[in-house]
């Protein structure tokens, strides 16, 4: 329950940061925070109370946690790193071209 509320709070915080901040690097950080909220939501959906990790080495019976959301989150984390590298290189290029990172300034410079 608490985990779901924290995940929703993180996603809302990330979207609010993406909408209201004006620095491009801060927008990328807000995107990363929203990503983290999505990972937390997926992992919390797959949790079972009293379960153990889905690994058969040293397994002693009992319920297991759902392994499918963990695999999907594992893929999503690497894609998040790729998006971060790509976005930061784009921002560096924008700074070299325009000399500023402010979004409203960027719109005013060239139509």
């Amino acid at each position, binding site marked *: 329950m608490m985990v779901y509320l924290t995940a929703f709070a993180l996603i809302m915080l990330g979207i609010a940061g993406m909408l209201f901040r004006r620095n491009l690097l801060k927008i990328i950080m807000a995107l990363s925070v929203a990503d983290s909220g999505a990972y937390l939501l997926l992992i919390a959906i797959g949790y079972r109370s009293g379960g153990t990790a889905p*690994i058969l080495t040293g397994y002693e019976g009992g319920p297991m946690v759902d392994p499918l959301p963990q695999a999907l989150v594992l893929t999503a984390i690497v894609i998040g790193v790729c998006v971060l590298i790509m976005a930061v290189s784009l921002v*560096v290029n924008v700074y*070299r071209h325009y000399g500023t990172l402010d979004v409203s300034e960027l719109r005013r410079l060239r139509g």
Partner: protein
Amino acid sequence: MTRTFSRIVETVADFFLIFIIVFGIYIITHGHLTPGGGFQGGVVLAAGILLLLVAHGFSFARKIPEELLSDLEAIGGIAFILLASLGFGQSFFYNILWHEKLAFAEQVGRFFSGGAIPLMNLSVGLKVVAGITSGMFALSLFGGEES
């Protein structure tokens, strides 16, 4: 090139790099038995290389040729697709090494088990470490205000 940190920082970074590399290789090769796998081990190895980059200054990235990293990433991707298309008689990701008892076909839980999965771990780990390292090297060398 001027030295960015003192000699102590460089020596300690070189010392801990050994443990980071051993830990990353352990995570990659035991990916089918314990927590870990190709992605995690590749990211750990990339973090070790980045520690080297930070401790020795960013001009350290010039010493490693860029074509080597591109070739390693391409080799990883091609090996992954070839391993996936080995069982093309059945379907694309059919694990023929495990079902036909060709190689890596011991009992579940032993080291040489899992069929194509340890080899896929190796190739994906190679791909991830080469890709992230080349991206970081490019970001630390190029761009910026024409230094």
